[in-house]
């Protein structure tokens, strides 16, 4: 299917290729652990082997004596982190980020209790194995289902109601079910890594895997009480993150401390096992949904309860029940969200945070309801289509989800779907179709971009934003090329450095929507500056190099900012998606194969078709992983992960994934920003797990409500 770039379904070869593609395919792209510098040393963390309690003794003698070891830093000898110390006259908050090497308390299994620094990685790793701690263990809890009664409402905001509570109960057709999304770990391919170097007592440089160099800079400045201007954070290439690099984690602080102790640059690279305990995860969440409808499929009420896990030292909150408030037009909705504190590390946002969890429950429940009332699940969604935001009554800035439904349904061949499971067989496998829909707030914030036209006609754009993979530099280059009317290869987009003009952290699908307008603004201002130089009557897109030469200028630059914009008060702004899946199920062995996928995104204007398509496909594959195989399993007796590696924690491999069709509505949202572009990263995943679960049910009649849908849950 060949179509021009700007239409709904680009092929993998269409659109502009990534501006950093060459660096990535040649191995020249440098990630945080890959910088060399004189005197570089290696830090390896030692994790606690109990889950709750405190350290009685910690024996570092053998480690300290091991060849090449420069230091073993523990709570007993660590320099103090100034920002962690109690301030006089101020109450000590009862919760907050884990304080590294602060005292002997253990809050979770794997908590760093020491960092060993040596001259080579091998020596540091071996020496770390020689650190032996003795503990006083206390009884721990790591299991959410058994401790749901300990749930509490976060910040007293856990309850929502419109209309009558529990109205679904009196509906003629209703479903009430519980759904489980287990702990799922981001597991980007790049292990989190940092190189920390003190350039002076109050000057720190780090090469760090982070989604936000400015946030990391500010966190480190606050913790070490040095001016933010003295902290330099480099994060030019980030090997995936999906949320895991949205905050500053203990290993980063440990590296900075270690660098202080040895007065040399220290590199700390987490192990894959560390990735399960050190950089967050999607929290295990229990949910219950009651949903009711009239005989003609009109929703009468939704009740959505959720309990998500958090650590004992921080309250991590997200929005799993939000989708039930706003996805469908329903007069009566009540939701309740609780947290349960467990003796585990703090979770963090993972792609489609909250919404992905909530959408699994809501979109599964809706599917179950469609069978109860015997209406096609697509029709049921159309019957309850929300034309305005249900919770506020505000109009949507744009919403073309109905068109998306139709496009996707046509594409997958929804017409071949039978409402009765086990109706269709193909080569001995049951065939099933399922759909799931997603929504995510369209956010934007201010950003600043420096645009500098060089004498040779090269345009350099600079801003501090990170690119964790979506292709930020590529999208921004496309925007600038259009604004300036110059070829993309004359543009260099520089990012991932805290010394550049400020930009928001890359998260919440907001980068293009936030930084894009700043690029537009900077280009506009730069063109204006050229106009002034040329005087009246100049072309809108002059030969910039020629103008500079004529005026004997080496370059011309502007630094321009976009604000967060307005519109939120008048409009509800969201991106929308729908995923259609065709699966094949072997009912005897429980094996599920994804046969076909069509994802339709309504995310405003598509700036960069090639990378946008990849992002949608990537989100869908993340959703397939969540649906079919991902689960971080704790042995609750020990509070320790038992599958903390890539052999036992399964993520999809190539053999699991067919061609995935990514379709775009591609209609600009005039409210969100000047380009009309909204986020697409989160919606690419939200709703996908339910689409798979619904297809599995449609194929073989097995309804799996606790993810992942592994063969044992489907067979028989």
């Amino acid at each position, binding site marked *: 299917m060949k179509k021009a770039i700007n239409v709904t379904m680009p092929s*993998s*070869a269409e659109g502009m*290729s*990534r501006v*950093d*593609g*060459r660096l*990535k*395919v*040649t*191995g020249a*792209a*440098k*990630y945080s*652990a*890959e910088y060399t510098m004189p005197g570089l040393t290696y830090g390896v963390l030692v994790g606690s082997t109990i889950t709750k309690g405190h350290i009685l003794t910690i024996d570092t003698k053998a480690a300290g*004596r*091991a*060849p090449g070891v420069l230091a073993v830093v523990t709570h007993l000898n660590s320099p103090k982190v100034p920002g962690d110390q109690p301030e006089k006259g101020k109450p000590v908050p009862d919760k907050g980020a884990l304080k590294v090497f602060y005292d002997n308390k253990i809050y979770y299994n794997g908590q760093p209790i020491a960092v060993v620094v040596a001259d*080579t*990685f*091998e020596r540091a790793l*071996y020496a770390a194995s020689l650190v032996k701690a003795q503990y006083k263990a206390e009884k721990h809890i790591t299991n959410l289902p058994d401790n749901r009664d300990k749930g509490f409402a976060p910040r007293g905001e856990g309850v929502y109601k419109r209309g009558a509570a529990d109205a679904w109960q009196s509906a003629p057709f209703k479903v009430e079910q519980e759904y489980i999304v287990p702990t799922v770990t981001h*597991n*980007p*391919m*790049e*292990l989190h890594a940092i190189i920390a170097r003190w350039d002076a007592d109050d000057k720190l440089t780090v090469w760090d895997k982070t989604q936000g160099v400015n946030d990391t800079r500010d966190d480190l400045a606050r913790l070490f009480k040095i001016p933010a201007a003295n902290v330099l954070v480099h994060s030019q*290439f*980030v*090997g*995936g993150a*999906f949320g895991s690099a949205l905050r500053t984690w203990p290993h980063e602080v440990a590296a900075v401390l270690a660098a202080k102790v040895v007065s040399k640059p220290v590199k700390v690279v987490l*192990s*894959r096992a560390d990735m399960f305990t050190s950089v967050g995860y999607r929290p295990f969440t229990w949910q219950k949904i009651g949903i009711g409808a009239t005989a003609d499929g009109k929703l009468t009420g939704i009740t959505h309860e959720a309990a998500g896990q958090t650590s004992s030292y921080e309250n991590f909150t997200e929005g799993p029940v939000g989708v039930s408030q706003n996805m469908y037009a329903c007069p009566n909705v009540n939701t309740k969200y609780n947290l349960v504190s467990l003796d585990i590390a703090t979770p963090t946002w993972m792609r489609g945070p909250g919404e992905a969890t909530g959408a699994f429950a809501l979109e599964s429940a809706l599917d179950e309801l469609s069978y109860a009332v015997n209406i096609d699940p697509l029709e049921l969604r159309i019957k309850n289509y929300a034309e305005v935001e249900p919770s506020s009554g505000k109009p949507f800035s744009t919403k073309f989800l109905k068109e998306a439904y139709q496009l996707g349904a046509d594409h997958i061949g929804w017409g071949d779907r039978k409402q009765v499971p086990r109706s269709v067989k193909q080569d001995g496998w049951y065939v099933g179709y399922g759909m799931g829909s997603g929504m995510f707030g369209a956010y934007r914030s201010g950003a600043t971009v420096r645009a500098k036209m060089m004498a040779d006609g090269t345009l350099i754009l600079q801003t501090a934003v990170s690119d*964790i*993979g979506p*292709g930020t530099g590529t999208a921004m280059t496309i925007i600038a090329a259009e604004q300036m009317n110059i070829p993309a290869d004359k543009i260099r987009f520089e990012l991932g450095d805290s010394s550049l003009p400020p930009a928001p952290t890359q998260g919440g699908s907001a980068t293009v929507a936030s930084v894009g307008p700043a690029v537009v603004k900077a280009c506009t201002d730069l063109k204006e500056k050229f106009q002034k130089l040329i005087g009246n009557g100049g072309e809108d897109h002059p030969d910039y190099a020629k103008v500079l030469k004529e005026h004997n200028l080496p370059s011309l630059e502007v630094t321009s900012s976009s604000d967060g914009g307005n519109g939120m008060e008048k409009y509800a702004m969201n991106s929308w998606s729908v995923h259609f899946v065709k699966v094949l199920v072997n009912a005897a062995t429980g094996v599920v194969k994804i046969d076909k996928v069509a994802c339709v995104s309504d995310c405003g204007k598509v700036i960069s078709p*090639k*990378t946008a*398509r*990849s*992002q949608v*496909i*990537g*989100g*869908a*594959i*993340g959703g397939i992983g969540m649906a079919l195989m991902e689960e971080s399993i704790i042995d609750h007796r020990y509070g320790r992960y038992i599958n903390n*590696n*890539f*052999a036992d924690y399964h*993520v*999809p*491999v*190539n*053999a699991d*994934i067919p*061609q*995935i069709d990514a379709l775009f509505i591609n209609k600009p949202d005039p409210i969100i920003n000047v380009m009309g572009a909204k986020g697409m990263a989160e919606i690419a995943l939200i709703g996908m797990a339910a689409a798979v679960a619904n297809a599995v049910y449609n194929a073989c009649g097995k309804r799996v409500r606790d993810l992942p849908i592994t063969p044992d849950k489907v067979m028989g």
Partner: protein
Amino acid sequence: MKSDKPTPETTDVKDSSRRDFLKQSTLLTAVAVTPVVAIKAANDHMDEHLAAVFEKMPLKMEVNGKTVNLSVEPRSTLLDILREQLDLTGTKKGCDHGQCGACTVHVDGHRINSCLTLGIMMSGKKITTIEGLAKGDQLHPMQEAFIKHDGFQCGYCTPGQIMSAVSCIREGHAGSEHEIREYMSGNVCRCGAYPNIVNAILEVKDGGFAV
């Protein structure tokens, strides 16, 4: 078989004091030895200097067409040697346990996981990493195809994917989409670029490019 004649593999062991040390070993037929005494000395921190000399062994191999002579600890993996000693950081560490494929390189033309390969066992071998795939400025067709079909997002698994993709065709396992998927399943991509990777490989295969 009692002989203290070095087998061909010992020819790079030139250090005579080292040879003398070896003579004390009961293991006369074996070569390339890290003496237990040295390890013990090192572990006990008794003689850092001695340890530093004897913990390491000479390693001569060819990397991207160039001969490299190194002194390595037997426990150092090929991956860590490439990344930390040769600054060839294109080869990635994703799991360090043979479970992700990010560290894939070619040894004598065959793809392997460098994280589970002891460097010392690469003596005399020809290693090709991602840095050695292009001919100067001219990218390998697989690199071009990965760019064209956007076979990556974050780029971290990409070098391993490309090395594996080249092997996939060389091995004759790129006959169909289905076969490519199976034979590319040793390379995990968390960003989810799989369909694009398959398209890139198909393009190179169908284009009849020499790989």
